């Protein structure tokens, strides 16, 4: 295919600039993807927040003995995945781990004072609106005196976290713009270096699109290889990244952050498209802007 050999020959002629563009593309795409993962984990998938996936239901002391009979009613509601009675020992264990003093004082008075509690887990796919309906439904079940919705309590924090994710998104977009500028500079340099060649081709009657075409092939090459590098780097660095992210996410009660093969694949696709678009726009802008030849 002549077009491919023309494009590759051009890239070989200006090898250093090609390498530089390739690696800066990869670096920017990786940075952007990391921001994207961050943003997605916080905001894109609310299910990652554990508080969103559960509520604690306290049973009135009068109905404490009938707690078992509440379970099927709750389980029948939309989106409820699990409903289990939290045993007193289990709760004490939890206290012992996080609030040892409190555990000590309760131990003294006896665990009978603890209300019976049902831990309700929601389906991951439950939408926020449906979830609210279900929570309301649980509240109206006879015997449930109080529904402790963790999500409500952290809602303020979540709102600000969402802003954090929006910020990360904007930073990602800015990085993409930086990539466009990198590409613009690159293709402007190409134009300058290949001034004679472009002039000559125009002398044969080449149109702007003919000159742009090898650049588009070049853009494809950058996008392909940069996203491949990106996927490899993210894949082999996924452990480190998870450790870094989870210092934040785990403390805040999010699911552990992980990059699985599906997430890596998606990142690859997004990186490829983002890289391709940036280079095509950059090349086009360079051609329009720099009428060197």
């Amino acid at each position: 295919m002549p077009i491919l050999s023309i494009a590759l020959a051009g890239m070989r002629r200006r090898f250093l600039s090609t390498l530089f563009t390739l690696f800066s593309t990869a670096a920017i795409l990786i940075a952007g993807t990391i921001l994207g993962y961050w943003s997605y984990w916080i905001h894109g998938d609310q299910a990652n927040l554990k508080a969103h996936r559960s509520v604690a239901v306290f049973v009135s002391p009068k109905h404490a003995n009938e707690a078992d009979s509440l379970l099927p009613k709750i389980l029948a509601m939309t989106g409820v995945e699990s409903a289990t009675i939290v045993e007193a020992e289990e709760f004490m264990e939890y206290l012992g781990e996080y609030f040892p003093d409190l555990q000590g004082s309760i131990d003294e008075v006896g665990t009978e004072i603890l209300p019976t509690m049902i831990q309700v887990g929601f389906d991951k796919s439950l939408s926020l609106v449906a979830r609210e309906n279900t929570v309301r439904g649980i509240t109206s079940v006879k015997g449930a005196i109080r529904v402790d919705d963790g999500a409500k309590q952290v809602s303020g924090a979540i709102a600000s976290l969402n802003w954090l994710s929006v910020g990360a998104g904007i930073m990602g977009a800015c990085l993409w713009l930086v990539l466009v500028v990198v590409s613009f500079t690159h293709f402007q340099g190409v134009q300058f270096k290949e001034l004679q060649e472009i002039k000559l081709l125009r002398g044969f009657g080449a149109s702007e699109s003919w000159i742009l075409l090898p650049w588009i092939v070049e853009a494809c090459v950058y996008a392909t290889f940069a996203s491949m590098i990106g996927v490899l780097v993210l894949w082999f660095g996924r452990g480190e990244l998870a450790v870094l992210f989870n210092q934040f996410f785990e403390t805040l009660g999010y699911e552990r952050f992980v990059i699985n093969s599906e997430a890596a694949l998606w990142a690859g696709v997004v990186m490829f498209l983002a890289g391709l678009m940036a280079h095509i726009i950059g090349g086009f802008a360079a051609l329009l802007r720099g009428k060197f030849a």
Partner: protein
Amino acid sequence: MITLKRVSKFYDTNTQVLRAVDFSLGKGDFFFVVGDSGAGKTTLLKLMSGEEKPSKGSVLLNGVADVSTDSRVIRSFRKRTGFVHQDFKLFLDRTVLENVSLPLYFGRAGTGIKRISLFGGSVKKVVLDAMKLVDLPEKMFNTKVGNLSGGERQRVAIARAIINRPDVLIADEPTGSLDHNHTWAIIDLFQKLNLKGMAIILATHDRDIVRKVRKPTAHLEKGVLRFDTREGACLF
């Protein structure tokens, strides 16, 4: 086909290379342009091909389009124009095939020469035919132009200029690097092409050629173009 109307050219404000040149190249014409080196021959030819823009006056293609305005018309005109540059303008890092076949990417209607696709297709035969015309051996097909001698390079440049069977051939000292035999072989070729209807304008230093090939001659002196339609007349 190409008309220059009171064309002046300055490269900078002090040096005027051409002064109010009027010139017209019609279908099937054959002109020589002669003049000392630095007289402005190359500049004149580049103005005709649209590679340079006139500082004053206008260059009309087919009597209508001004080279400084309509890019579409210029493009289609360029597809029908062959240019042999004085400095060849070949790609030294590419093979003879790659150099000679370049204009074929842009094609031209009505010549029977197929435009080559960027996505495949072989042009070997067309290129070999053109190489034969300028007496380049077939085995040089895949040789890098950088490894060729000056005379061979010049012939590669000529092959590239004529491969598309242009309506107009603009040749800037096309025999400057050729030995005696090749010079005359090329001049013969040009005359044959001219007989088939190709308009040719040929800038040269070589008095012999102008004397022996009896064709109208344009003299450039200090930027002024003087015409001599007495064929073969040579004032220098």
